């Protein structure tokens, strides 16, 4: 195909639609490139550089007459007639400018406005907004600093500015992890249901809260009440199917449900914001201060964990264990094992939803990555790391995991690999989990006279 790159005519526009690197790539795909002479000068690219990359240097008519015309700005009134009828033009075409669009339509060209490309992960390479907008933002701050009469600290992005609150932020992360892992343990341990999709209920809680804030502007208190309810609804629905299976089939089904939730959130852009997620879910004062929010998380985590503990030592918890130990015997003493496990699944889902809600407000946002399958697996690791036998297991496991993750992440770019190795070593050292190992040491010590 013949691709043309005309020079930009708009005053102040220094960019150009192709660089020698992109020319090389297009050339390699078998296209012919015609660059208008001096098109790259304002962007510090001389004609020679384009020629070296394999492009032909032509006059304006040559570039405009191509099959595909690459532009930064929308062709102006005088430029539009230079496009060949049936040609294609790609650039930042300002799709909200009706007259400009009319003009292009009248010229009979096919036009692609890059700023209208969906901002999904797969379209990331076509994203024309963040790079330049980001730089504009930096420049705006520098200009403002120049005008401002007083001193201001060097702030570029939010990164690195939260150091003082790090302990609290980590604390909040640990607490949400504790709620997550304890609720997973509730069905995995006493219920014997090995869920590989617990992130679904975390996600339902987080998105439930965030979307209520975004669309209906409910206050945080109400959103945090709604979070477990949304998760409960999801867990009741999915759990009804899941308890009909066991072992690896149950694991597969829970995984599939988690993928459904993830896909729904990812693809239902109109409601959930797709890959961008929901932003601006900040807690109102006084919860906007890290330590107040930490206390809120602490209270909710304590309530969640103590409640689950109480359930486990109540008839219902006994019945869950009975159904796990021997479904045959449990049915033979009148226990409806499926129903008990179903309700257990729902309770665990609801409590997990609290973790999701807390997480959304702690981060101020929620996106599909945070509820991806990785989170389900993290939960399993936390439970197994701490030990599945007791309720203390997931609490210790979650605390160790969240702290390790935070620490390791700061050390190296390859933190996932390093974290994996550390977890592997811990699991090898404590096959019964950290709590399991300590309690057997305790027992041995106690057995000695």
């Amino acid at each position, binding site marked *: 195909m013949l691709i043309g790159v005309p020079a930009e005519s708009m005053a102040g526009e220094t960019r150009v639609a192709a660089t020698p690197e992109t020319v090389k790539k297009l050339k390699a795909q078998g296209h012919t490139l015609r660059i208008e002479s001096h098109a790259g000068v304002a962007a510090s690219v001389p004609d020679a550089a384009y020629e070296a990359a394999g492009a032909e240097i032509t006059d304006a008519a040559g570039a405009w007459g191509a099959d595909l015309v690459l532009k930064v700005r929308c062709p102006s009134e005088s430029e539009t007639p230079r496009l060949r009828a049936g040609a294609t033009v790609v650039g930042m075409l300002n799709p909200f400018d009706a007259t400009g669009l009319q003009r292009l339509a009248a010229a009979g060209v096919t036009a692609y406005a890059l700023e209208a490309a969906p901002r999904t992960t797969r379209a990331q390479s076509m994203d024309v907004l963040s790079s330049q907008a980001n730089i504009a933002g930096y420049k705006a701050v520098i200009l403002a600093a120049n005008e401002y009469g007083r001193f201001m600290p060097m702030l570029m992005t939010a990164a690195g500015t939260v150091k003082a609150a790090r302990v609290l932020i980590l604390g909040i992360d640990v607490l949400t992890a504790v709620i997550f892992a304890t609720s997973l343990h509730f069905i995995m341990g006493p219920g014997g249901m090995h869920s590989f999709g617990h992130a679904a209920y975390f996600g339902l809680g987080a998105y439930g809260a965030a979307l209520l804030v975004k669309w209906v502007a409910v206050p945080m208190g109400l959103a945090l009440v709604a979070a477990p309810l949304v998760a409960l609804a999801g867990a009741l629905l999915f759990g009804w199917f899941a308890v009909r299976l066991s072992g690896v089939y149950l694991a597969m089904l829970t995984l599939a449900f988690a993928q459904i939730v993830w896909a729904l959130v990812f693809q239902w852009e109109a409601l959930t914001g797709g890959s961008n997620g929901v932003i601006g879910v900040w807690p109102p004062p006084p919860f906007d201060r890290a330590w107040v929010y930490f206390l809120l998380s602490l209270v909710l985590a304590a309530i969640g964990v103590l409640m689950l503990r*109480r359930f486990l030592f*109540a008839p*219902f918890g006994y019945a869950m264990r009975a159904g796990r*130990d021997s479904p045959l*015997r*449990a049915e033979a*003493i*009148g*226990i409806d094992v499926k129903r008990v496990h179903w309700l257990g699944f729902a309770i665990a889902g609801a409590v997990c939803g609290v973790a999701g809600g807390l997480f959304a407000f702690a981060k101020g946002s929620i996106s599909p990555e945070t509820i991806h399958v990785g989170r389900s697996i993290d939960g399993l690791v936390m439970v197994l790391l701490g030990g599945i036998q007791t309720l203390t297991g997931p609490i210790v496991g979650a605390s160790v995991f969240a702290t390790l993750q935070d620490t390791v992440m700061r050390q190296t770019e390859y933190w996932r690999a390093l974290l994996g190795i550390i977890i592997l070593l811990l699991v090898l050292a404590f096959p019964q989990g950290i709590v399991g190992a300590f309690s057997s040491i305790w027992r041995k010590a106690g057995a000695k006279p």
Partner: protein
Amino acid sequence: MSVLAIRSLSKAFGGVHAVNNVSFEIAQGEFLAMIGPNGAGKSTCFNMINGQLTPDSGEILFEDRNIAGLKPRAVWRLGVGRTFQVAATFSSMTVIENVQMALISHGHETYQLWRAAAQMHRDRALDLLQQVGMREAANRPSRELAYGDIKRIELAIALANEPRLLLMDEPTAGMAPRERNDLIALVKRLVVERKISVLFTEHSMDVVFAFADRIIVLARGRLIADGNAASIRDHPQVREVYFGTGKTFATGASS
């Protein structure tokens, strides 16, 4: 009065008539043994009574109510207790918790989320354990117990809902002869006190002939004999299914 009446019960798996038009009754307080060689249909018959299988045809009248096709837990609620061939208890629980669980379920308290289960029905549970001779072991984890003791726990669990009928699938399987007699003697004493009817299947004939009030014999899905120990021992058809026709032996001896 019959506690359980089986009327023309049949069940086929594919083309195999596992149970074929079987009828019998159990009177109140009766200790009835169901015997027969492997594949005679004992387990199928048993599993239809306790609700694990649905009969193709026929009636299972427990206290004049047809329970055919009810789920195991529904059958239990009506007053039918059971023990398993391989004793099933809740291995993560202590001995007393096993019994408490059965009592909790019997009291329709399974879905309570807030009460401390450890304090519920303790006295009644200890009382049941006392009766099966396991009170001393009340607080031991049940997975640490010997198999004979597990059987006793299971018996205590089975008695928790005060059943009028107890179904025992090979109660002495996997036990030493001494233990075997002790267990059956215990069962017999407990059910006589309570006037509970018992239907049990059994492979060891010494237990059957020593303890059963009445014996029914199944062979290839059909009921071939029904009577007391002496009449079963001499029943020609029973001898045939258990020992063959004896002709091989007779011929071999004469030659």
